C-alpha cells in the first residue's frame, strides 16, 4: 500500500508542478501580470489615431506608464475616443497633460506619448485629456507639402 500511496503522491506533485508552471507563465510571460495593481482611466479624443491598437503603450518621457484599453469612434463628433489605463503609481499627472499618437522607430508600433503640463490639479479617473495631437498620416503629410510648395512658387 505504501508504494501505491507514493505513486499517488508523486502524481499529485506532478500536477501541482504543472499548475505552478501555469501560474508562473500566466503572470510573468503574458500580459496577465499587468492586471495586478490598479490604474485609473483617462479618455482622449483624436481626429486620427493612425494604426494605434488596443494594449498599445502609453508612455511619458519614454517610460511606460499605462496602456490603451479601448479605441472607439464617437458617434457625435466622429473622432476616435481612446480610453487608456494609467498605473496608480503615476497619479500625479497634471490636468493639462497633452497626448499625441507617436511611432517608435520607422517600423515600430504606435503608442501614445504624454507630455505633462503645469496645472496644479491632477488627472483623475474618467477625466478627459483636452490637448491631443493626431497620428501623422504619410499621405496627408506629402500632399500638404506638395500644395504648400506649389503655392510658394506662384508668389
Amino acid at each position, binding site marked *: 500500500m505504501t508504494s501505491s500511496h507514493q*505513486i499517488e503522491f508523486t502524481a499529485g506533485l506532478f500536477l501541482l508542478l*504543472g499548475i505552478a508552471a501555469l501560474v508562473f507563465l500566466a503572470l510573468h*510571460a503574458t500580459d496577465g501580470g499587468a492586471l495586478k495593481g490598479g490604474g485609473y482611466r483617462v479618455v482622449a479624443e483624436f481626429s486620427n489615431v493612425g494604426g494605434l491598437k488596443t494594449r498599445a503603450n502609453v508612455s511619458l518621457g519614454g517610460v511606460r506608464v499605462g496602456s490603451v484599453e479601448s479605441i472607439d469612434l464617437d458617434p457625435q463628433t466622429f473622432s476616435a475616443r481612446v480610453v487608456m489605463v494609467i498605473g496608480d503609481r503615476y497619479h500625479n499627472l497634471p490636468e493639462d497633460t497633452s497626448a499625441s499618437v507617436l511611432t517608435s522607430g520607422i517600423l515600430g508600433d504606435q503608442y501614445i506619448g504624454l507630455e505633462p503640463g503645469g496645472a496644479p490639479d491632477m488627472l483623475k479617473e474618467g477625466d478627459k485629456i483636452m490637448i491631443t495631437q493626431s497620428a501623422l498620416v504619410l499621405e496627408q503629410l506629402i500632399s500638404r507639402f506638395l500644395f504648400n510648395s506649389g503655392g510658394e512658387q506662384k508668389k
Partner: protein
Amino acid sequence: MTMPSSLGGRLLAEPIREFGRAGIFLVTAFARMRFGPLQLGEILRQVYFVGARSLVIIVICGFFVGLVLTLQTHDTLTRFGAGDSVSTVLALSLFRELAPVLTAILFAGRAGTSITAEIGLMKATEQLDALDLMAIDPMERIVQPRLLAGVLAVPALVMVFNVTALLGGVFFSVYLMGSDPIVFWSKMQASVELGKDFMGGLLKSAVFGFLVSWLAVYFGWSAKPTSEGVALATTQTVITSAIAVLLMDFVLSAFML
C-alpha cells in the same frame, strides 16, 4: 453494406472503418463512465505513469528547443535590427504552437506507446478476459483512467515544456548574448495575450492529450493478441498520433486566429 472490391476502394475504405471503430470505442468508453474513489485513485496512478515519468524527456527537449529557437531568431532578427523582439517570437511560437505540438508528439512516443503495449499485452495474455470474469469492467478499470490521465497530464507537461524552453531562451539570450533581461521579459509581457495566446495553447494541449491517449488506448484495445499484433499497434499509435495532432493543430489554430 458490401465493401468495395477494387483495390483503391479498399485502400480508402479501411482507414474510414478504422476511424469508425475508434469512434464507437470512444463512445462505449464514455457511456460506461462511472466515478468513484477507486476510479480517482486509478486516474492518479496513470497520471504518474504517463505524466510524471515523462518529465525528464520533456524538460530536456524543452530546454533545447528554447535554446535553438532563440539561437535562430536572434541571428535573423539582429540582422534587421529587431533583436529586442527575440523574446516575443520565442514566447508566441512556444505558447501557440511548438510546446503543445512537440509535447503531444513526445508524449505519444513516451507514454502512448507504453499504454498501447500494456493494453495489447493484457489482451494477449488474456488479462482483460480475466477482469471480465471477475465482473470488473475492463473499460472502466483500464480504459477510462488512461483516457482521463492523458487529458490531465499533457497540459501539465506542456506548461513544464514552456517554462524550460523559456529558461533555455533566457540562458542563450541573456547569458550568452548579453541581452538585457528586463527588456527580454517586458517585451514578452507586452506582446503575449493571456486569453488568446496562452489559454489557446492550454486548450490545444488538453485536446492533444485526449487525442493521443484515445488513439493509444484504442490501438492497444484492438491489437491482435500476438506479439506481432502488439508491435504493429504500437507503431500505429505513434504514426496516427503524430498525424492526428498535426492535423488537429491546424484546425484548432484556424479557429482560434
